[in-house]
């Protein structure tokens, strides 16, 4: 991770839109925390759509002909089985099965993968690559703009982009003179662009989104949306492992991201670490407790809490937690705070639309 402040390709536009002048740094990039009211930015994704600058997320490129074998051993799922332009969420572990990272692994072509995560971990990928005669490098400078909310499809269509794309896939496309990539890897769509094209991409989306109430949202609103959707992020929801030790897959309830039928780094330790636990959502009646607070049911410790935030849509603090066993939908105590454990996602986006019955119009 570099220490000097960097600007993303959308910085000029983001700065012009940031009425609050509220900035923060992630991975060395200067980013808008929020442009106006954080709660409204998070809610706007549920009413219309928001665009969020994700260019700060480190992207590590794994290349060379041996990259498929390398990637297959590195991650907890066999990503060498992915077809080009497909992606999967996976973990990478240290030898003690400590979770070093959680990320999305995208297969760009036969010999190239890109790992998108919040933590990067490039030096570790580099060291590991040597043993496989593969290469790991950081993709720098590219812009990535997320478009989140149920109006996203309509906005993309209005902008002249075809939104038909399966989740966890991407498509490289030529968009009125620009080389861009459209993907569906997170809560909505992501539009990747060349460093110099950031302002054009931003302006085109703003223009297309005008009649769809599109607005930019800052990193804080994205944190809320991710938590509502049950996305765990190292650095925010837990401290990632280093060379040894650290939180195990079971500690984080991430067993769903592990396919132990295939070999991967840390598998032996993972198998020794015990039965799978479960990542759940927590909703609190009053203020959320600190992370790592024990969750107690009828006097027994049944798990612990991870990160928490206030959800404006739910009008209460919500968080993630790990249950050692037992089902969600139960009443627990976290520290001294009563809470309820619920299956993830806590509040999906886009929300499934309940069938509404129409009222007949009044007689004339």
């Amino acid at each position, binding site marked *: 991770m570099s220490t000097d402040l960097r600007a993303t390709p959308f910085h000029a536009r983001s700065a012009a839109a940031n009425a609050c002048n509220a900035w923060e740094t992630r991975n060395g990039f200067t980013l808008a925390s929020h442009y106006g*009211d954080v*709660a*409204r930015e998070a*809610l706007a994704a*549920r*009413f*219309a759509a928001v665009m969020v600058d994700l260019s700060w997320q480190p992207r590590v490129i794994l290349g060379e002909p041996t990259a498929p074998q390398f990637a297959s051993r590195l991650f907890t799922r066999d990503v060498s089985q992915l077809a080009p332009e497909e992606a999967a969420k996976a973990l990478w572990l240290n030898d003690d099965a400590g979770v070093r990272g959680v990320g999305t692994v995208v297969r760009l072509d036969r010999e190239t993968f890109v790992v998108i995560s919040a933590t990067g971990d490039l030096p570790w990928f580099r060291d590991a690559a040597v043993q496989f005669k593969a290469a790991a490098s950081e993709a720098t400078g590219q812009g990535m703009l997320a478009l989140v909310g*149920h*109006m996203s499809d*309509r906005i993309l*269509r*209005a902008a002249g982009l075809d939104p038909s794309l399966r989740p966890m896939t991407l498509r490289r496309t030529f968009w009125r003179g620009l080389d861009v990539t459209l993907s569906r890897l997170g809560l909505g769509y992501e539009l990747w662009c060349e460093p110099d094209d950031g302002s054009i991409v931003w302006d085109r989306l703003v223009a297309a989104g005008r*009649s*769809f*109430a599109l607005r930019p949202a800052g990193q804080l609103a994205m944190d809320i949306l991710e938590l509502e959707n049950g996305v765990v992020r190292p650095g925010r929801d837990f401290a990632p492992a280093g060379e040894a030790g650290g939180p195990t897959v079971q500690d984080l309830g991430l067993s769903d991201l592990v396919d132990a039928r295939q070999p991967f780094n840390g598998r032996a330790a993972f198998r020794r670490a015990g039965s799978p636990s479960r990542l759940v959502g927590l*909703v609190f*009646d009053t203020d959320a407790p600190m992370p790592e607070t024990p969750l107690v049911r009828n006097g027994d410790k049944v798990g612990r809490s991870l990160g928490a935030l206030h*959800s*404006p*849509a*739910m*009008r*209460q603090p919500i968080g993630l937690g790990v249950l050692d066993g037992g089902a969600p939908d139960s009443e627990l105590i976290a520290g001294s705070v009563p809470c309820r454990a619920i299956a993830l996602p*806590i*509040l999906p986006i886009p*929300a*499934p*639309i*309940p*069938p*509404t*019955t*129409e*009222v*007949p*119009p*009044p007689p004339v």
Partner: protein
Amino acid sequence: MRYDACIIGAGADGLAAAAVLAARGRSVMVIERDSRCGGRCATREFHPGFRASPFVDELPAIPDDIFRALDLARRGAIHWQPSAASPEEPYRSLRRAVIARAMAEAQTPPVRRRFRRPTIDPWPGEELARLSLAQIGAQPPLGYVGERERSAVLLLAGPGGGMVAGGLGRLGEALRMAAQEAGAEITCGLEATDIRRFDGRVAGVALADGTEVAARAVISTLDLKRTFLSLFSWNELPAALVERAGAFRAAPGTARLLVALAAPPPLPAGVAPGAVLWSASWEAVEEAYRAWRRGAVPERPVALLRLVSACDPSLAPDGAAVLTVTLGGIPLAPFDGAWTNEKREGLREQALAAVEALLPGARERVVASELLVPPDIEERLGLSAGDLSGGDLAADQMLAFRPFTDCAGTRTPVKGLYLAGPSSALAPLAACAGGVAAARAVLSDLAAGRLR
């Protein structure tokens, strides 16, 4: 079967009451005359591709504890944050205190001794509200307030709860799910015609198809007049009660115009998407109010505009827009005869002129519009005088005086009958709260053996 409670009306209050009672294991039957649940929590297509919530754009805010207990967000009711300006102190605290007081009284009824006036502490905020309302003089039509009566209105009319993603119909659906998943039964498409009494107390509800629902308690969410004057035969209740219900004053009527626009008009600078636009002067408000009292349609009706699709674009087709206009001071029955097509067209014209004045360029983009006048609202929602607020906002019709002292809170002079809905004390302050208060009163009275 005999139910613990029968609830009349499946609007926000009725459904919230049903959910609370059923969650506590009580048997509940909700009777709704319309073919669907939700009451004013409704959204429909008024022109191909264009949708709006026909009666109101938002309810008063639902208190957080009720919103969470009914799990409304996860059931699909996502509210836009009410405007930052609305919850001001000390009104916010006062409103909370009023709700807490009503809930406390619902759980433990104040002791009333025979032959002696009950000594009851005044409700929080009573003095402040009386003071400020006394200064108003003529009551303003609901929602149209200038500086002068700010404090009373801030206290009495709670902040709006904000628009709901996809329209208010989603809130109606969320509440229906909350009630049904808790175990409440709902019958739609059947009107309650009478409240049956036996041995001096409520025994059940008679329905339009001639059947009856036997119940130990009845919660009416109909307005005061409908509840006491149309659900009982005229000589069945004490004359004083009938007289009191008859004297309850309705608020000035409202009309609604739902407008489909080919494209969104530019919003004036600084106007947040989904915010209400209005421009009437205080004089115009008073003039409209005076016209309404005479039974005349005001020459310049007070118009509140809302470009609802600017906040919730799902209501309009791609590139188009939906606008709602709420017109204040519109009489139920104009003095010169009922609402004719001609009068409706006249009002539509006035409304569209108001739209053009506030949003220049909007008029030429109008594709279609639908007008609802007070008799339409009365007919569709079963509300006396089409009065959406279920009674005027006035010193003698609020807090512990709403709808009147013997009915304060939620218990009524008729044993086993509870009042929620628009005429109840909490209706102006918060949505669903009146229903929850009634449900809590029923629970407490059932547990204490006060209901047989």
